[in-house]
């Protein structure tokens, strides 16, 4: 019996390792081949940093990184503020208004990206608005806000209404009550909403592809439009992998550390 169990454990761990290997294969691959000394994607010709150097000389690629980060930052900032405030407002709205607003809010989440993309493109085209970085940013804000609301709303439902009510009774203006009473209680949900919004904007391809002007492209669009295989993309991917890992580790470690500190203080 004991033996049978250990064979089973061996099998399950092996299976999980295989799944992880599959999921990490392309990531490992780009990291290794970003240091390849040749243009080949098949054989490794020795260690070099030439693709990193080439990346920093590639104007088009650097521009796409800059646009990606810029749009993601603006979209995250605006959608976090608008989304949080809207969620708080909607949580106090009449049930019918709230239901309709939340259903419409879900549309960009549930709709296939390409439908959201062409719907926005048609809007800009028929309003005779030139597609540019402005329309791109507007589109990103539009699909980011729903994620912020979806992240903040459940937390708001758990809040005790009386606390905000008490703040108002004690003479606080709604904005004061918002800043001093409600937001501190839902801060973690706002933070995770902002994180989701940022990654959604950073990774988006389809909606950007249809709403950006000809002179603006983000990383995804740059990679999509590339005619020939360019190993500098591996260097870029490697840098993004490092950044994502750092952010995720920090996002997971900081709350854990804070919790430990809180627990210590409780003792």
């Amino acid at each position: 019996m004991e033996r049978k169990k250990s064979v089973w454990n061996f099998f399950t761990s092996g299976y999980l390792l295989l799944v992880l290997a599959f999921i990490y294969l392309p990531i490992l691959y780009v990291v290794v081949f970003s240091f390849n000394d040749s243009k080949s994607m098949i054989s490794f010709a020795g260690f070099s940093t030439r693709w990193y150097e080439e990346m920093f000389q590639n104007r088009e690629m650097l521009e796409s990184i800059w646009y990606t980060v810029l749009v993601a930052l603006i979209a995250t900032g605006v959608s976090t503020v608008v989304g949080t405030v809207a969620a708080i407002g909607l949580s106090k709205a009449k049930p019918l208004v709230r239901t309709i607003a939340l259903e419409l809010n879900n549309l960009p989440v549930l709709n296939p990206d390409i439908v959201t993309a062409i719907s926005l493109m048609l809007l800009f085209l028929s309003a005779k608005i030139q597609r540019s970085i402005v329309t791109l940013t507007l589109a990103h804000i539009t699909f980011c806000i729903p994620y912020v609301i979806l992240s903040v709303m459940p937390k708001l439902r758990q809040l005790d209404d009386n606390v905000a009510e008490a703040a108002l009774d004690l003479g606080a203006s709604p904005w004061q009550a918002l800043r001093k009473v409600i937001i501190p209680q839902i801060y973690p949900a706002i933070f995770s909403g902002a994180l989701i919004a940022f990654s959604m904007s950073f990774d988006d391809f389809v909606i950007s592809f249809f709403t950006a002007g000809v002179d603006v492209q983000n990383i995804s669009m740059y990679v999509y439009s590339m005619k020939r295989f360019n190993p500098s993309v591996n260097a870029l991917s490697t840098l993004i992998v490092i950044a994502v890992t750092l952010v995720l580790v920090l996002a997971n470690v900081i709350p854990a550390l804070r919790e430990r500190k809180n627990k210590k203080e409780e003792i």
Partner: protein
Amino acid sequence: MKSFFRMSYPYLVWIALFIVAPMIMILLYATTRSSNGVITFSFTLDNFARFFSDPTFLKVLWTSLRIALITTVFCILIGYPAALFIANLPEKRQTFMILLLTLPMWINMLLKTYAWRGILMNFDLESEVKVFIGMVYDFLPYMIIQIHTAIAKLDRNLLIASYDLGANRWKTFLKVTLPLSVPGIISGITLVFLPAVSSFVIPKLLGGGNYVLIGNLIETYFLVAGDWNFGSAISLIMALIIIASMYLTKKLDRSTVEEG
């Protein structure tokens, strides 16, 4: 509390401008025809008739559905055991495994697909197989996480009761764990099948130019052919198919919950 409600006004305006109005635009374009760039606002269903009467378009639709279906089946077949095995790990290692699975989800999909293009250059595979590998790769973590959540929520006492009543591991799995994890599989399906139907990046990057799915068709009609009316009709058809399948899976979900 009305003063709080006022805070949602900016977003309500935003919804009207950037969610409702654009959807109306699609509807408008799909049900009208354009003549020399000037839209004549006469209602027509010609765009839809054109789609459903042309075997080429129906074939593209069928290919998209078939690929999405096969991708979903593979995600369940590979993902279910993984989710089950993760759920049997000690709690700390479970969290760690889930973190490991989520990490690549934060990395740009195009960059990952591009990496697969490099890897798959080493192998002589049919372009359809390459597309499947890319699709399963992209969607597998979603499936595993959904199923794992359902299994982890399972009341352990049910399993103990099943063993006490004389069922072995295999029977317990078939009669207790599997039926109770169906909601996880269903929410996994909504996260895999629905986006897979409309995906057009993976087929294009991994399948080469000759691989046309409904997403690619929409792209072509908007950006190459410039026929927005027909393009709108196609995307409306796709959106309706997706909404219908979402409704069906929701219904399925409810009926399994009622049974259990």
